[in-house]
């Protein structure tokens, strides 16, 4: 479907990639002397980009699994790499999530960021463009290009505007993710030399022996498992989250982690389906460890951001669990539609987690801006002074715990349901998240929000201003809408997920 080229001969997806980048450069050019103008330019860019991204949903053809809004141009003929963009039902929601989340991020930094504000906004805008590029790239070299380039703004965001241990955290973040990605690059080059192309679809079709698939799977696994992150390579995330400024944490949790999940769906599974089938128990085991063990770890955190960071890892365990359940379900029931259920759940979980964790970090940011502390013990009875904020916080905490009616429920429910089809014990362990998730989030709420006013600092708190109310309200609407009526999202994904399932259940072994 070549409906990509519209304005000025530039396709919609290209606009979504390069418009924020251009906006970011403009913001930098304005300089800190004109910071207030720069803020408005940044907000305008984020808003325009989001509005421009809406047609992705509006004109999306939900009857096909083919890539839509496709753009293709020669880029590096020497490597037969093309500038090839396009979205399907798996990447389109993630693109929308990206363009959407950037708006609250920009607003959240409006007043709080006082040092070098223009660079702050510019970094987020440029990163937005690069992240859209990651989700929209259909050429694996282009994908890698965006995937790595995106590390630079994040590195700077944590390093410049982060907390006291920001240097340690940001270098750890960079090196960890870079190390993982390098192995992916090696695998991509290997396949390029075999297939003669970096096109994702060509790589999907490339026959590979089981040994090759193992190596390639592990190379991808190194990249995506670090990014998502899975136990035991998750240790960079709590550090990065704790030290990052609020906006950085939001983008990390809401979007960057999703790239790992997206990578599994777009690369690891369809390119190495047989290896994925052989190794699915391994991945499922790690996912369940993340769900149970990391859930327990979250329980004992004394730092709010760290607690949410660990809860993110546990939630991402659900994503990898849902994705890799497909093989067991297919073996157990032979039902392809049922096999897609885990992937559906994983996708909903990713979108939902994007909204919920983003909102949770924004809530912590709201409190941190007032108290300059993230320690749970410094708080207590916040709701007495901040009733509106308290209501929002409770709502998002419920969503984080997976309460029915919120978006958190849909994804977890689908994944647990799918795991029942595969193996009772998977379902049993996965379901502990309902207990653990409820325990750590509700306990957090109890200690921070509820109860009597804990100390003099809390007594001086003021409730949300209009700006903060606006961003939390928008996210709350998103969380509830997705929780009460997930059908539009599921509908959009359906053909692509089904196509993916068909791809991964058919062997790629030659001969």
């Amino acid at each position, binding site marked *: 479907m070549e409906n990509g080229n519209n304005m000025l001969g530039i396709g919609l997806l290209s606009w979504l990639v390069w418009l924020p980048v251009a906006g970011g450069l403009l913001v930098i050019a304005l300089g800190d002397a004109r910071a207030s103008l720069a803020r408005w330019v940044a907000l305008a860019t984020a808003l325009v980009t989001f509005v421009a991204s809406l047609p992705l949903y509006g004109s999306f053809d939900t009857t096909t699994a083919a890539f839509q809004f496709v753009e293709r141009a020669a880029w590096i003929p*020497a490597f037969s790499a093309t500038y090839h963009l396009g979205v399907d039902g798996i990447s389109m929601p993630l693109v929308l999530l990206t363009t959407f989340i950037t708006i609250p991020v920009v607003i959240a930094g409006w007043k709080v960021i006082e040092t070098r504000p223009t660079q702050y906004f510019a970094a987020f805008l440029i990163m937005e463009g690069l992240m859209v590029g990651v989700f929209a790239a259909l050429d694996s070299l282009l994908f890698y290009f965006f995937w790595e380039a995106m590390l630079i703004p994040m590195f700077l965001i944590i390093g410049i505007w982060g907390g006291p241990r920001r240097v340690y955290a940001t270098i750890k973040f960079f090196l960890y993710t870079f190390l993982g990605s390098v192995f992916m690059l090696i695998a991509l*080059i*290997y396949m390029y030399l075999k297939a003669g192309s970096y096109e994702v679809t060509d790589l999907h079709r490339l026959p590979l022996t089981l040994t090759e698939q193992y190596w390639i799977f592990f190379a991808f696994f190194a990249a995506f498992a670090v990014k998502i992150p899975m136990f035991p390579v998750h240790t960079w995330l709590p550090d990065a989250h704790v030290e990052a400024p609020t906006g950085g944490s939001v983008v990390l949790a809401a979007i960057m982690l999703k790239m790992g999940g997206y990578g599994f769906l777009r690369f690891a599974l369809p390119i190495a389906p047989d290896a994925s089938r052989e190794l699915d128990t391994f991945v499922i085991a790690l996912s369940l460890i993340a769900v149970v063990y990391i859930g327990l770890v979250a329980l004992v955190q004394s730092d709010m951001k760290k607690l949410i960071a660990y809860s993110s890892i546990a939630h991402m365990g659900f994503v990898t669990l849902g994705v890799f359940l497909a093989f067991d379900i297919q073996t157990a029931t032979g039902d392809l539609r049922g096999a897609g259920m885990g992937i559906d759940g994983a996708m909903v979980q990713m979108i939902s987690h994007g909204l919920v964790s983003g909102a949770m970090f924004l809530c912590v940011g709201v409190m941190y801006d007032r108290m300059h502390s993230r320690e749970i013990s410094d708080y207590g009875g916040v709701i007495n002074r901040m009733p509106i904020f308290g209501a929002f916080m409770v709502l998002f905490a419920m969503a984080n715990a997976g309460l029915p009616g919120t978006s958190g429920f849909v994804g977890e429910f689908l994944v647990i349901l799918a795991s029942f089809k595969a193996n009772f014990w998977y379902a049993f362990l996965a379901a502990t998240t309902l207990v653990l998730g409820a325990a750590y989030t509700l306990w957090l709420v109890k200690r921070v929000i509820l109860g009597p006013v804990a100390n003099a600092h809390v007594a001086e708190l003021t409730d949300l201003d209009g700006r903060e109310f606006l961003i939390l309200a928008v996210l709350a609407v998103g969380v509830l809408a997705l929780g009460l009526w997930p059908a539009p999202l599921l509908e959009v994904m359906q053909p692509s997920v089904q196509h993916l399932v068909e791809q991964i259940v058919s062997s790629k072994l030659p001969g």
Partner: protein
Amino acid sequence: MQAAITLQSLAPALPEIFMVAAICVVLLADVFAGAAARRITPTLTLVVIALGAALTILHAQVPERVVLFSGMYVADPLGTLLKLLGFLFTGVALLYSRAYLEARNLLKGEYYVLVLTALLGIFVIVSAGSLLTLYIGVELLALSLYALVAFDRDSGIAAESAMKYFVLGAIASGCLLYGMSLVYGMSGSLLLADLAVRLQGEASLGLIMGIVFLVVGVAFKFGAVPFHMWVPDVYQGAPSSVTLFVATAPKIASFALAFRLLAGGLGQVAGTWMQMLSIVAIASLVLGNVVAIAQTSLKRMLAYSAIGNVGFILLGFVAGTEQGYEAALYYTVVYVLMTLGSFGVILLASRAGFEASELDDYKGLHARDPLLALIMMVLMFSTAGIPPFVGFWAKLQIFQALWAVNQMALVVCAAAVSVIGVFYYLRVVKLMYFDAPTEAPRGFAHRGVRFALGLNAFAVLALGLLPESLLSLCAKVLS
């Protein structure tokens, strides 16, 4: 065998002929202009370089390989490209250096003459058709560089590093010459084209012996491990403007030396030198990148980074395919472009009495001089091999070339080492952007020079976003 020499037939050698004449002109102009020379010579040199580049483009281009002077001299598209790059990089290096030299009372005519003779040496290597021409070029370049490193007469550390460079360089030249004599003895010819024909099949022990010495010479000129000892000392000890020059244009010569000698003359017995070179390459990668972490001086850190990057260039030769040579050429060009920028930043950040050569001098550079910090950040990320900057494609090219010949171990090793390397490039960014500024003077530089440096960084970004032009150019001149 050859027709009579006419002016027309000499055209391919125009760059060298022009350079010899130009060196004499600059030297004489400098002598006769006296005190006014301070202003005339730098400008005249830049004019000469521009003129030389223009002449090379207009009259010295050859569609294919042309041999002159009974095979001693070779002109081919690769040579033309390398000479043009030599002009370009030298010109840019001189442009960046002027304010630095002026501030330290080093702005003397000899400096420019020595740079031009070094450039001539590079050209001779680039166009060498025989072992002797190659050796003459190597010596011409090396002697000019020794003198340049010692140019600041009053600096003890500069004199010491020049001494080290000279002694070690002399030994390496000796090795090179000895290796050449052995190869000549085994083959009976000095012409590289003849060597390629005569040296085939199983290499004899004598030949291997000769090749060992040649590889030592080549590795020394590159500054590859274990013949890298001079690199950190020279980079640190020499005046920054000289370091800038030593670190950039001569790398082209090193590439040409390796390409003409190993890939050209000894291409049919590649198995012998490839094995040696792969050990040298891996050792350089590991040592360069690991030791760079421990440095406190930026110039020394960049020296070890150079050693690591040379490892990458050599890996292109280890692949031993056309793709591998292409990758090595591309890597060399890209590396020199990036190094020009990063030493340019050092020059522009410094001023009289403040060398800006320590890492700590860059603390909070962002607050003092945002443009310079931005440029340095771009260059550091690029050298680390992170997209969207051009350094990424250079590494990718090398990986691809190695994978294509199934050197998986080398690919994985190089990739892992490059991750280690990222750490110290990030540290520079950390110092500039994350640390509080220190009380350091702001560098002084002409606006035009700052603009040129900005353009240099922009080229690193632009070639990273759209790498095709340079990639296909490298492929074209080698095919």
